[in-house]
């Protein structure tokens, strides 16, 4: 049954001013015009089109994909809004899609709530909305509901976006941070730290020009390929804030195991290494927006790695370490130099060192 009623094509409103003002948050015609002209125009799909206060789905359609719903939400406040390799819109779609996908879910529906500081240009909003629309393209996953708020100057930093996602987990797929077992192999799908370095570089605070693009990407297809090759995969996590080190610590703690990685197998771009050298940062803690950590049984590791390597978003994939018995929660690294060190959680944020 199709519960979305057929509607007469509605004429979309148009914004005729260059910047967002408080009038666009007032609930009247100006707000409707903004939503129509910027968001409905870009997202353009049948579930969103009726502009009811909620999106409505057919339960049977959802149930066809699997036996469990996955539900997640994330807020995006990145500065700058547009950075090498992406923008806040792309990030907001990728982040939520990836949070669903690492649970084994197929992403189906997204919401998009934006908080806009007055004075932001309409053109910037259009650019971000278009970027969101293009990011979801080809994934069978749509932005089906949303909200806009406009706040006074200074009440937010230009633009904040919250996306919520619903996905469905196919029958028999069970992934969790607590499922890593001694003997398992730890994989990543490529070069680490690009997003963190790109953002720090783009902020310009450090007066360093970095030729590094964010790795921001939707990983659901890569994950499907990985899970097809490794049906008994234990754990998938996207290594966002806090980077690889944080995710490994979370997995080691939840599974009550130790994890040891090998620095020489941990892929980091020369430019990111150089950037970190200059600023005194540790790339293991830099954020990624297109990288997963996968823990798979040893006998599926080869196939899992091959599956990732065969996907464009896994071209730099590598087996970086193993899960071992030992002190629960401990993560160590064999350094390229021949030593061994503990890789702990970060206390606060990384701060550039003085000398």
């Amino acid at each position, binding site marked *: 049954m199709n519960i979305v009623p057929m509607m007469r094509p509605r004429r979309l409103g148009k914004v005729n001013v260059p910047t967002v003002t408080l009038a666009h948050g007032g609930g009247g015609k100006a707000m409707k015009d903004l939503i129509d002209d910027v968001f409905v125009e870009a997202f353009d799909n049948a579930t969103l089109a009726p502009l009811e206060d909620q999106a409505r789905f057919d339960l049977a359609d959802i149930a066809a994909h699997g036996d469990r719903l996955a539900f997640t939400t994330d807020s995006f406040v990145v500065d700058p809004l547009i950075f090498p390799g992406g923008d806040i819109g792309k990030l907001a779609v990728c982040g939520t899609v990836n949070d669903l996908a690492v649970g084994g879910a197929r992403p189906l529906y997204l919401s998009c709530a934006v908080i806009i500081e007055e004075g932001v240009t309409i053109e910037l909003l259009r650019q971000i909305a278009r970027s969101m629309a293009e990011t979801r393209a080809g994934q069978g996953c749509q932005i089906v509901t949303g909200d806009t708020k406009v706040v006074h100057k200074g009440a937010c930093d230009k633009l904040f976006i919250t996306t919520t996602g619903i996905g469905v987990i196919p029958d028999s797929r069970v992934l969790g941070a607590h499922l890593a077992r001694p003997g398992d192999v730890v994989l990543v799908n490529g070069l680490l730290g690009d997003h963190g370095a790109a953002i720090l570089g783009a902020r310009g605070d*450090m007066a360093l020009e970095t030729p590094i693009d964010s790795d921001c990407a939707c990983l659901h297809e890569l994950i499907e390929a990985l899970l097809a090759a490794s049906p008994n995969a234990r754990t998938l996590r996207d290594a966002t804030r806090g980077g690889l080190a944080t995710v490994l610590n979370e997995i080691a703690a939840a599974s009550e195991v130790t994890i040891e990685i090998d620095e020489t197998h941990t892929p980091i771009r020369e430019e990111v290494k150089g950037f970190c050298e200059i600023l005194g940062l540790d790339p293991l803690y830099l954020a990624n927006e297109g990288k997963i950590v996968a823990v798979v049984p040893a006998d599926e590791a080869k196939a899992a790695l091959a599956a990732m390597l065969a996907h464009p978003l896994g071209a730099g994939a590598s087996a970086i370490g193993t899960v071992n018995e030992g002190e629960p929660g401990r993560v160590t690294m064999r350094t390229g130099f*021949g030593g061994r060190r*503990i890789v702990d959680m970060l206390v606060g944020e990384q701060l*550039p060192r003085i*000398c």
Partner: protein
Amino acid sequence: MKYIDEFRDREKAAVLIKEIEALVSTIPLAKERPLNIMEVCGGHTHSIFRYGIEGMLPKEIDLVHGPGCPVCVLPMGRVDDCVAIAERPEVIFTTFGDAMRVPGSKKSLMQAKADGADIRMVYSPMDALTIARMNPDREIVFFGLGFETTMPSTALTILQAASEGVTNFSVFCNHITIVPTLKAILESPDLHLDGFLGPGHVSMVIGTAPYEFIARFYKKPMVVAGFEPLDVLQSIWMVLKQIKEGRADIENQYARVVPDDGNAAALSAVAEVYELREFFEWRGLGSIDHSGVRLREPYARFDAERRFALPNVTIADPTACQCGEVLKGMIKPWQCKLFGAACTPETPLGALMVSAEGACSAYYQYGSLKAERAGAI
């Protein structure tokens, strides 16, 4: 990376470790007790932990992590002064990143920023001067911090500001000098040190001559060391060789960066801008004579201490802190009563827990497999 990977070569490291083991086995003292070698500089401490060097060394060598982290040794009273300046509405307070978390008696700069103070992280004092040019209606204060390594860049920025006639820029000068501090440590009656890795970056500015007294009067070997892991290993080997041969010399392992005479241009800028203070307060070590510098009279207009009224209160270190004993090599970080309990990187009480380069913080953060073997963490 060129000029970096070469100094992180695993095979060369293995060869050096073998050489170190062979050398140690011929030193009689090492059979009685571990040889204590102090790395003066926080940068060395960081490298030692980051590359897992401690665990590679034979058990007869103990590395003692010295006072050379300028962020760590900054006393609470000075942080309070920073916060007082930063909270003035007309001020934009600029600082190196890792000073943000240093606790004052009431708050750190990070907390002051959260409370509304305009505090900005910069990578160089020149960036602070740029901010001053761009904000002529604000007072821009740079938090001058560090040993001789960073002293010249602050001095040159002040000279630049003076030549441009910038009137809204000043420096809160907390620069400190390493030699009196080494002297204070060497004077300590309960000292257990057998040799030093000298600070590479400081020496790049001051050269190697200022350390001669360590060899001559205190009969301790020192090797000025680079920061890459092979530099550290080679320098340890050089110190051991001196011990073995009964020598106490100042040697320069980091000759690719450190000229024996130092950097004349940097030294002349330093001499032009600064004069020694009578004494300066160090967290963990107390007051040390002639260990800090301030701006000379002709540059008084760039001196934030003279420009703003400051609380300037001395705040005593917490009494249970054992930072001084750790610094002198008497105890290991994890043997301090407060380590990991009352004193952690989130809530540091002692100097050495403050910055990533502090010995206690490094033990806590990177851990030490050596400490783990001792059942400590």
